């Protein structure tokens, strides 16, 4: 069932890419312009998607649907690391990279049921190591917050 869904997604993606590629400027006198490769990729995606959905439908026919469609929503926990990365992107320049990393690690550790004290120690040590190795040894300009680190 998932295969059918992904097949359809790829067909849609192929169509979208094809539509966008048609907008690319054409250089007169050249057989192959900027749109050539994206168009090929679009065709590849659409054909591959069609093959995938076709075999999924055939499989469904053979086995019969079990009624549930088998596409459960992804578990909510998976959104937590993503949300924290977004939070880092927006907040690191306000409160600093190191406090933000500390926060990310604390949240993730506690969510997984690590007790508070070990979480705090692990986060503090890891933040210090990452900040020092990247910020000082590798000279990456990590954003510095109002606290000075």
């Amino acid at each position, binding site marked *: 069932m*998932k*295969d059918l*869904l*992904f097949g359809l997604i*790829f067909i849609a993606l192929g169509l979208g*890419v094809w539509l*966008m*590629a048609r907008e*690319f*400027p054409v*250089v007169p006198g*050249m*057989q*192959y*312009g*900027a749109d050539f*490769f*994206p168009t090929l*990729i679009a065709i*590849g*995606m659409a054909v*591959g*998607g069609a*093959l*995938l959905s076709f*075999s999924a439908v055939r499989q469904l026919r053979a086995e019969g649907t079990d009624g549930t469609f088998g596409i459960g929503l*992804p*578990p909510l*926990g*998976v959104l*937590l*690391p*993503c949300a*924290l*990365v*977004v939070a*880092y*992107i927006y907040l690191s320049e306000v409160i600093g*990279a190191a406090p933000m*990393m500390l926060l*990310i*690690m604390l949240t*993730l*550790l506690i*969510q*997984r*049921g*690590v007790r508070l004290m070990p979480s705090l120690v*692990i*986060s503090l040590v*890891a*933040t210090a190591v*990452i900040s020092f190795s*990247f910020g000082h040894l*590798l*000279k*990456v*300009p*990590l954003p510095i917050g109002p606290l000075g680190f």
Partner: protein
Amino acid sequence: MNALLDGILLVFNFQTLLVILLAALFGVFVGAIPGLSATMAVALLVPITFAMDPTAAIAAIITTAAMAIFAGDIPGTYLNIPGTPASAAYVADSAALGRAGRAREALGLNLTCSVIGGLTGTLVLVMIAPSLAEFALNFSSYEYFWLAVLGLGSAVFISTGSAVKGFLSLMVGLLLATVGLDMVTGAPRFTFDVPDLMGGINFIPVMIGFFAMYEVMKLYSIPRDKTREQDVAQTIAPQHGSVFGLVPTHLKRYWKNVIRGSSLGAFIGALPGAGADIAAWICYAVSKKRSKTPEAYGKGHVEGLVDAGSANNSAVAGAWVPALVFGIPGDSITAIVIGVLYMKGMNPGPTIFMDNSAMAYGLFTAFFVANLILLPIGYLAIRSAHIFAVTPTRVLMPIILCFCIVGAFAINNSLTDVWIMLVCGIAAYLIATADFPIAPAILGLVLGNILETNFMTSMIKADGNLLAFVERPISIGLALLVLLVALFPVLAKYWRMRYPRALSSPKEAIE
């Protein structure tokens, strides 16, 4: 003879040897951290080498690259996250061995193969560099195009499971490669008016997203109470056995694979544009296709490890052939190296062996020393890798996420790369839950630009005549090779139908 002695003396002094030792430790550190590639290690090293004398600077780069390529196998084996792109080809096998408690054995074998591969690559560099480079000089955009096609073809073969899914995954990678300004017309493609995307999508954040971020998300997709039970199974299985104990047995059995992987790896590395990662992919595909037990690949089989593990290290040395003799980079690392060579007054080109023979011999010596120091430092790294084993993943993953963020940011000091890392992580999570292989997407991204640029260049040269791709002797040879690879599944099926007994011996499959 005098130049040879001078060259050796340039390396065997306290200062240079100390630099090599420090570079080896640095290489382990960067290579073993997922998301930090050997190329990034070299790029980070360049500012430090400004202050060194030429031989020491080059030796530092060589050692770091060799070490990082091997060290990339360590997180690959313990955590299923390749530390460098060059380890991605066989990460499924090494991770399966790690889960079975055979991580030390796998890494010991990998280390030995890396050293043999590195030494073989060096021998190729020293012995047949001029003639091989001369051959590669005959290559034009037509041949590069076929080479890229060959690489992409093998991407679909390596993927375990459905070929359609492998193909679609490849398309995703190729699509990502088209982002940015078009090389021929200068038109922006799929940039959505984001200035940072004009230059194209950086490979490293994608890699971090696809392999590292995805692993973090996978852990957090399991409900919390389930991880507690799973923690026992999720954590790295207890490792036993010695590092080198079983190496002679494996080498005795697969010595042909070592030779094949090392020589093919050095050859692929010597081809411009193809580096350690492509060498590993192609050698793994060749090994799988040539093996008696292809079905065991990807499930913890050592044979592919032997081939690809030797290949990626020999490619590191092989990549220096065109870089030194013609100034054409063999891979991204040597692209940086060429810049360093110019800065140090060691202009690459055919005359380098006449003008700067002592330094050239010094460079060769540095290669031998760097590959030999791999053995003790690599051994220490494997023994201390149990840090990974005693740390449960629920503790490791938050730290890895922070490394991902900072690592993605560090390449261009740009938050756009962090976004790319995030989006690729989510995409990898979504397609992997539907059993799509991720590896072809990575290869599509790496080779997409090479493929398109060379196609466009060829078509401009040939005025749109597609037949030009098969008119040159070398290009038609490569084209036939591509055809052979494409027909391989059909031929293999026919072969199996005709000789059903040649299918496999079950004893090896179990191993």
